[in-house]
C-alpha cells in the first residue's frame, strides 16, 4: 500500500511540470482565440475579486497620493505662477466662449437644427490597473447593476480615458486608449478631418488613416468624431506632440494612472440604438 502511494506521488511529481506547462499554453491559445469560456471566467472572477482589489488598492493609492502631494508642495511656486498665467488666458477664452455659445444657439434656432442627445453618466472609482506589456486596462467599481455596458465611453475631467470591454455585476474593465487593441475615431479640432487614434501599449498614441500625415503640426488637438454612434462627439482625446517614422504621435489628455474617479457615459443616438436610460445631463461633461 505504501509502495503504491509512493509510486503515485512520484508519478504525479514527474508529470506535474509538463502538465501545467501544457495547461498554461492551452489557456493562452484559448485567450488568443477569444474563447467565450475564458471571457465568462474573467467576468465572474472580476466580480468576486473586485471588492478585495478595492480594499487592497487603497494603501497603494494612498502612497501615490502622498507622493503627488509632496511633489506638488515642492513645485508650489512655479505651479502658482503657471496657474496665474493660465487663468488670465482662460478668462479671455471664457468671454469668447460665452459669445460663441449665444451665437451658436441663435443659429441653431434659425436652422431648426436637431440637438445632440445628452449623455447620462455613472461615476466610478478606478480600483485596479494592469501595467504590463500585454494590456492597458483599468478596473472600475461599477458594473451592469449600475448601468455600465460594453462599449460605453469612460471620461475624466480632461478627456477620454477609454471604453468598457467587460462588465460584471458590480465591476467592469476599461480598455485604455493606450492599449494595443484600442481604436478611436477622431477628428482634428481645427479642420474636422477624420482619423483613427490607436494605442501600442506605450504612453503615447499613433494616428492612423489620416490624409494629412505629413502636414500635421505639433499642438493639433484631437476630439472624438462620434462616428459609429457609441461615443459622443467632441470629447477631447489628445494632442499631437511629434512624429515617429512619418506617423504623428499623440499624447492623451488623460493619464489614467493619475486619476481616481471617472465617469461612464450612457450615450445613445435616438432611433439608431436602443435607449437604456433617460438622458439626465444639463451641463456639458468636459
Amino acid at each position: 500500500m505504501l509502495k503504491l502511494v509512493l509510486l503515485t506521488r512520484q508519478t504525479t511529481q514527474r508529470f506535474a511540470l509538463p502538465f501545467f506547462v501544457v495547461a498554461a499554453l492551452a489557456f493562452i491559445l484559448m485567450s488568443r482565440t477569444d474563447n467565450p469560456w475564458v471571457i465568462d471566467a474573467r467576468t465572474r472572477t472580476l466580480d468576486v475579486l473586485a471588492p478585495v482589489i478595492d480594499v487592497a488598492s487603497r494603501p497603494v493609492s494612498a502612497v501615490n497620493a502622498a507622493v503627488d502631494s509632496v511633489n506638488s508642495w515642492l513645485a508650489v511656486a512655479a505651479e502658482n505662477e503657471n496657474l496665474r498665467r493660465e487663468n488670465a488666458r482662460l478668462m479671455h477664452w471664457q468671454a469668447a466662449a460665452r459669445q460663441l455659445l449665444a451665437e451658436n444657439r441663435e443659429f441653431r434656432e434659425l436652422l431648426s437644427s436637431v440637438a445632440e442627445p445628452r449623455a447620462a453618466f455613472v461615476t466610478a472609482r478606478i480600483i485596479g490597473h494592469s501595467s504590463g506589456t500585454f494590456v492597458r486596462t483599468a478596473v472600475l467599481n461599477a458594473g451592469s447593476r449600475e448601468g455600465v455596458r460594453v462599449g460605453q465611453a469612460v471620461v475624466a475631467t480632461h478627456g477620454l480615458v477609454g471604453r468598457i470591454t467587460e462588465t460584471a455585476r458590480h465591476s467592469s474593465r476599461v480598455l485604455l486608449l493606450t492599449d494595443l487593441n484600442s481604436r478611436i475615431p477622431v477628428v482634428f479640432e481645427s479642420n474636422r478631418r477624420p482619423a483613427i487614434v490607436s494605442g501600442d501599449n506605450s504612453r503615447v498614441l499613433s494616428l492612423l488613416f489620416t490624409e494629412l500625415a505629413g502636414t500635421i503640426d505639433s499642438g493639433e488637438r484631437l476630439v472624438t468624431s462620434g462616428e459609429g454612434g457609441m461615443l459622443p462627439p467632441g470629447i477631447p482625446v489628445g494632442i499631437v506632440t511629434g512624429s515617429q517614422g512619418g506617423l504623428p504621435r499623440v499624447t492623451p489628455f488623460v493619464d489614467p494612472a493619475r486619476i481616481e474617479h471617472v465617469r461612464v457615459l450612457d450615450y445613445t443616438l435616438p432611433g439608431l440604438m436602443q435607449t437604456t436610460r433617460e438622458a439626465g445631463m444639463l451641463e456639458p461633461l468636459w
Partner: protein
Amino acid sequence: MVIEDWGASLKRRAVSFLPLVSGVALVLVTATPLYFGHVGDVAPRFGVTAVIFWTIYRPDLFGYASAFFLGIVADLMTGLPLGITALVLVMVRYGVFTRRRYFLRKSFHIVWAEYALVVIAAVVIDWMLAALYLWSYPGLLVHVFQVLLTVALFPGVYWLLARCQDLVSVAGREAAGSG
C-alpha cells in the same frame, strides 16, 4: 484528548493553505501599480516573490498547482491573456526548485542577489511571451523598473512571508506533538 488532536490537525490543515493565500494576497496588492513619473505605472512582481520564497522554504505546501493557480488569479485580475503569468510562475517554480539546496545554505544577502537574477529571468520570459503574443517588441523601460521595484521591496515581503512560515511551522509542531 481526541478533540484536541482533531483541533490541532484541523489547524495544521488550514495553515497549510497559508503559502497559497499569502501569494494571492500579494498578487492582489499589486492590482494598483505605483506611479513613476515618465515611466508610468509600475507594479512589482510579488507573485514571483511568493513562488520563490515558498519553493525554497516549503515546497511541500507550494507545488506546481499552487504556482499555476496563483498565475491564473494574476491573469484574471490584471486582464492579461489567461495562462501567461501561470506559465511564467510554473517555470520559476521549476528553476528555483532545482537549485533549492543551494538557496537553503546561503545567507540572506546571497539569496537576495540570486532572487534578483530569478526575477530578471521571469521578466525576460514574460517579455518574450509578450513579443510572441503581440508579434511586436514591447518597450523595456517598464520591465526594468518592475525588476528594480520587486528587488528593492524584497526584504519587506520576505519578512512578511517569513512570519507566515513561522505560523505554518508552529501549527505543524503542535499537530505532531498532540499526535
